[in-house]
């Protein structure tokens, strides 16, 4: 298998055939990953909630995603009579295609991605921003108040959180001096960027949750408020495109991106030593898998335990906290990179400033959201008892 892969992509090949094969491969991997992720999320969240999760279909419910897929694909595809035909039918694809396009630039292993782009990082950020148009199309075309409200919310949220996402990515690319993902990864052979730039790492995680509309930032699709938001009228195959492909492929793509850019990808603990020769890609794959799984499970843990924020709180967090600190990080990075030449002092300075900013941001957030402590509340309750 490995030799086949290597033979396929190692040798010179017709550029169109090469691109086609790579695309086919990524489509297959994505589909399998998405089904696995749905199963993993249901099991993982189930365990958090003291239940078993799917158990019936296949051993330990492993075939549940397959069964769901069959059910969704054979379900009637409904469209409201008053819906705008073209926009309604196209919206899921407009949502999904940008997510898929981000996958094309990710180097999953050394020298293996669909395309190694010089501006890979910027490409991912730019393309993933188009998703919001699909949200708006769906929300407007459904001719439904919930959908409209959800579309407005998603437009506000997704565009706002794109900015901290860009800032986080920009800070890392400043450190690496490149926007090429391979270059960024290769620089992390000893120290991952998450250590050098903890604040952008946190911003990226937060913004990822918001960009993917995952809990606790699932305001555009919040079930108890807008009942699925832009997707309220969708069913069957269109809904499965949105739900399964967009949501989980997006989760996977962003987690892989985070693991590559901040956790060192396939490079970090071992470096490109090549001690397995042709089979290097095995441990590289395992490294990326482990790191992205860690990020995915972290996001699932967060989304299973936190209540949803309100839209104004979400926007305030973005514009008043994430954004200023993201800018500060970039300014400080610029000064550090400009005036410190020694690599060791540079790394120490980067770590120290970013860590200090992280602490400052946490403190500012704490000040902004400070609530009376449990003791103070109990005291207030006791005082209130003496009213009557």
């Amino acid at each position, binding site marked *: 298998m490995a030799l086949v892969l290597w033979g396929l992509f190692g040798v010179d090949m017709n550029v169109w055939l090469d691109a086609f094969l790579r695309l086919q491969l990524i489509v297959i991997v994505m589909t399998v990953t998405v089904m696995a992720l749905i199963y993993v999320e249901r099991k993982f969240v189930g365990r958090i909630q003291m239940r078993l999760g799917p158990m019936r279909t296949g051993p330990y419910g492993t075939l549940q995603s397959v069964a769901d897929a069959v059910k969704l694909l054979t379900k009637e595809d409904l469209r409201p009579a008053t819906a*705008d035909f073209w*926009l309604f039918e196209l919206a899921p694809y407009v949502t999904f295609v940008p997510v898929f396009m981000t996958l094309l630039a990710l180097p999953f292993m050394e020298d293996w991605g669909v395309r190694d*782009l*010089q*501006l890979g990082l*910027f*490409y991912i*950020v*730019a*393309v993933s*921003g*188009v998703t*919001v*148009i699909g949200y*708006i*199309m769906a929300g*407007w075309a459904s001719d439904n108040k919930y959908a*409209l409200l959800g*579309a*407005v919310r998603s*437009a506000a949220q997704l*565009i706002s959180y*794109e900015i901290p996402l860009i800032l986080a990515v920009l800070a890392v690319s400043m450190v690496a001096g490149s*926007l090429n993902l391979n270059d960024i990864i290769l620089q992390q052979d000893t120290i991952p960027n998450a250590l050098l730039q903890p604040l952008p790492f946190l911003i990226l995680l937060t913004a990822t949750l918001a960009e993917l509309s995952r809990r606790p930032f699932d305001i555009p699709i919040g079930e108890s408020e807008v009942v699925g938001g832009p997707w309220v009228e969708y069913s069957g195959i269109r809904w499965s495109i949105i739900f399964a492909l967009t949501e989980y492929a997006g989760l996977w793509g962003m987690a892989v991106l985070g693991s590559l850019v901040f956790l060192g990808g396939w490079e970090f603990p071992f470096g490109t030593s090549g001690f397995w020769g042709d089979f290097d890609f095995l441990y590289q794959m395992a490294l990326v898998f482990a790191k992205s799984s860690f990020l995915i499970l972290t996001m699932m843990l967060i989304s299973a335990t936190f209540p949803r924020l309100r839209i104004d709180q979400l926007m305030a967090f973005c514009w008043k906290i994430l954004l200023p600190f993201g800018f500060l990080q970039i300014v400080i990075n610029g000064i550090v990179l400009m005036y410190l030449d020694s690599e060791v002092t540079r790394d120490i300075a980067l770590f120290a400033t970013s860590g200090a900013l992280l602490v400052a941001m946490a403190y500012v957030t704490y000040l902004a959201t400070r609530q009376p402590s449990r003791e103070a509340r109990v005291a207030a309750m006791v005082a209130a008892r003496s009213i009557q």
Partner: protein
Amino acid sequence: MTVAEVVFYLLALLSVIAAVGVVTVPNVVHAALFLILSLLGVAGFYILLSSEFLALVQVLIYGGAVATIILFGLMLTGGRDLPAVGPGAQWPLALLVSGALVVLLLTAVLNTTWPRDAGEMTLISINTLGSVLFREWLLPFELASLVLLVALIGAVVISSQEERES
């Protein structure tokens, strides 16, 4: 005809059709979506010209943010279908203005010396772009930022003023 040319003509067709759609469809939201399509087609041209950075900026700023804001505004204005727009009383004036614009553009196009081939163009790397923007043209760049900042603050002030009055 090379592959690049085929792609170019396809993109051109897409952009032009979308641009015509912007001004002809009666539904304003459809028009806005056509605008996005047209802008994305332009981004395709940039890629063909090997200016990936410009293409991505086009996608990010115009395709993502600006078009979304336009859509946002249109969606909330209520009226869905505009009445068919016929030639109003000002059509001679409009003809004059657009004719002048055509002449101006044509003159500009004809008077420019174009490189014969896209391949002959010097590729501008992102590093060059960065240093040009932040060294040679720093002052205009900062001025533009300042204007945007002023607009931003003004918008905040005006909207908060309305809130306080109501």
